[in-house]
């Protein structure tokens, strides 16, 4: 036996035990955490849905989960039980002072020169019956369902009748304070910081990574109407309906034509804003400037749309240009959402195409085609019509697609119970 050279290590149990959890790290996360400047990670869970149970209870995307979020990555955390006991051990100097020698003799009786060998000891300080696994569902994550729930809807009626929040701040329609307040926001300073604070407060309640939060926010053209330092966010933010977005966009196109601004080339955002103000109305704003900026932000050119920073670092928009392809698609989908939200309200396809063209700058009319629309964003309820498919229905479709045979056979091989019973759970629902 080669045990002669090997050392025996005394193994002990420390009481009281400590509370540890074990978290399985995917390689990319392990790399980030082992780097010299590792980021702080957020564990985010949605606001308990018991507050407004009902419609949300049916929506599986909003079920109570905890997500682990880095700046650009989101993982769902799930607990995996183990039939083994996993001990966390560490070296101990227990043999010196805490353990009586008599005990050691019991353990190592029969071993020669036991005392010399057993000066070293390790001790178990915690036992874990389960580990936490990080899981990326095939359908991915989206901030949209959470933002839909957190943000209040903004309809043009709100603006025309003077939204309550806006009125409180003296930023109601047409008042001189409106122009002043919005200038402050654009110019930076405390109001700008406050607005950032409001957005960040909302993002804290959205259990996905910052990049996805921002993408959801930009995609739905959400904007801040006001706020005070230390306020919790949701009440101060609005998400415009498709109708509002369409109206704002139409106005943008008209303004650009009037002032000869080529949207595809670099232009000053403040020039575009000025072009929208009616001369006849003494510069009365047709809608809040933050809403206008949210719409421009949605269609403006950006290298990486998923990237961070569009909302925060580059918040003050000065020069920008509009990305033709994504804008054409956005307008098409938005028009469909506003005018034909369901199969009952389906539009005739030829009417739809010409209305779509009418909402674009003259030079872009030729771009219009059904192939421009994102797959799954529309359907043909009958041979001549078209209507919109909303986000929730799209998610459902996506999930059904992922339940294919290969996933089932892969699940059978795994010993992971989450995978093993996933398909059965689905059938029950």
């Amino acid at each position, binding site marked *: 036996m080669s045990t002669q050279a090997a050392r025996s*290590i005394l193994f002990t149990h420390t009481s009281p035990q400590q509370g540890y959890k074990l978290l399985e790290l995917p390689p990319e996360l*392990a790399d980030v*955490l082992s780097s010299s400047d590792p980021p702080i990670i957020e564990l985010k869970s949605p606001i308990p849905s018991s507050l407004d149970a009902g419609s949300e209870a049916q929506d599986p995307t909003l079920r109570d989960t905890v997500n682990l979020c880095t700046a650009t990555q989101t993982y769902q955390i799930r607990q995996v039980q183990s*039939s*083994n006991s996993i001990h966390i051990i*560490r070296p101990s100097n227990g043999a010196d002072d805490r353990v009586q020698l008599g005990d050691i003799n019991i353990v190592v009786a029969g071993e020669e020169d036991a005392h010399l060998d057993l000066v070293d000891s390790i001790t178990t300080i915690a036992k874990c019956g389960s580990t936490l696994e990080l899981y990326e569902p095939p359908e991915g994550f989206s901030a949209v369902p959470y933002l839909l729930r957190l943000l209040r809807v903004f309809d043009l009626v709100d603006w025309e009748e003077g939204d309550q929040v806006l009125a409180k701040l003296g930023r109601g329609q047409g008042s001189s304070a409106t122009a002043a307040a919005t200038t402050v926001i654009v110019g930076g300073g405390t109001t700008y910081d406050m607005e950032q604070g409001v957005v960040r407060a909302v993002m804290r309640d959205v259990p996905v990574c910052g990049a996805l939060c921002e993408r959801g926010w930009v995609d739905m053209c959400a904007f801040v109407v006001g706020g005070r330092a230390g306020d919790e966010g949701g009440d101060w933010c609005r998400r415009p309906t498709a109708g509002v977005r369409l109206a704002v966009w139409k106005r943008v196109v008209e303004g650009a034509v009037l002032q000869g601004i080529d949207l595809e080339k670099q232009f000053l955002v403040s020039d575009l804003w000025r072009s929208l103000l009616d001369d006849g109305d003494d510069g009365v704003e047709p809608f809040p400037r933050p809403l206008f900026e949210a719409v421009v932000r949605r269609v403006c050119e950006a290298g990486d749309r998923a990237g961070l920073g569009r909302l925060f670092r580059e918040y003050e928009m000065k020069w920008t240009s509009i990305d033709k392809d994504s804008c054409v698609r956005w307008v098409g989908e938005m028009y469909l959402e506003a005018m034909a939200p369901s199969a009952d309200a389906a539009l005739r396809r030829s009417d739809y195409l010409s209305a779509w063209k009418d909402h674009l700058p003259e030079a872009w009319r030729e771009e219009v085609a059904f192939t421009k629309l994102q797959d799954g964003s529309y359907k043909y309820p009958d041979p001549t019509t078209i209507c919109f498919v909303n986000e929730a229905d799209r998610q459902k479709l996506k999930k059904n697609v992922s339940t294919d045979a290969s996933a089932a056979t892969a699940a059978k091989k795994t010993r992971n119970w989450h995978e093993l019973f996933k398909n059965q759970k689905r059938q029950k629902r």
Partner: protein
Amino acid sequence: MPSVSLHPRALSPATTPSSASNPLPPLLQTPSGLAILEIQGTINVPSDPNQGNPDEPLDPTAPVFETPLGKLLFPDYSPQTTTPDDTKWMKRVYLYIGKYQRMPGEVKKLAKPLAVVQRRPQTASRTDDGEQLEIVEIVKYRILFKNRPEPVNDA
């Protein structure tokens, strides 16, 4: 608040008593000294009446005591002769429980590294920050005993 921070480093990193040298082979050593040992089955230790909820932070004044369970042996590993790139020793580890039982096991690389996470200890200066977590260590190997103990005769 629905958001909890997980800090990538522990506030007070060293959990190892400084006087204790790490007797494990270097491959299993980590900066904090923590390692993972997995056993099929459980170790039954008489329950301690003072043992509170393991999720609660430890009361530093509570008496800490260690109960000897057995000994751990890396029969093919020797600090003098085993070279760092030699991995043969990993195939054999013994855990003796008491006098008459021996469990054969091995050292395995984890498919995915495990982060050991704990609650960040509350200090007097920050008590109202809410709950915060921290990663104490990232462990890449485990000592795995997946078989039942076998009887040994010490005669």
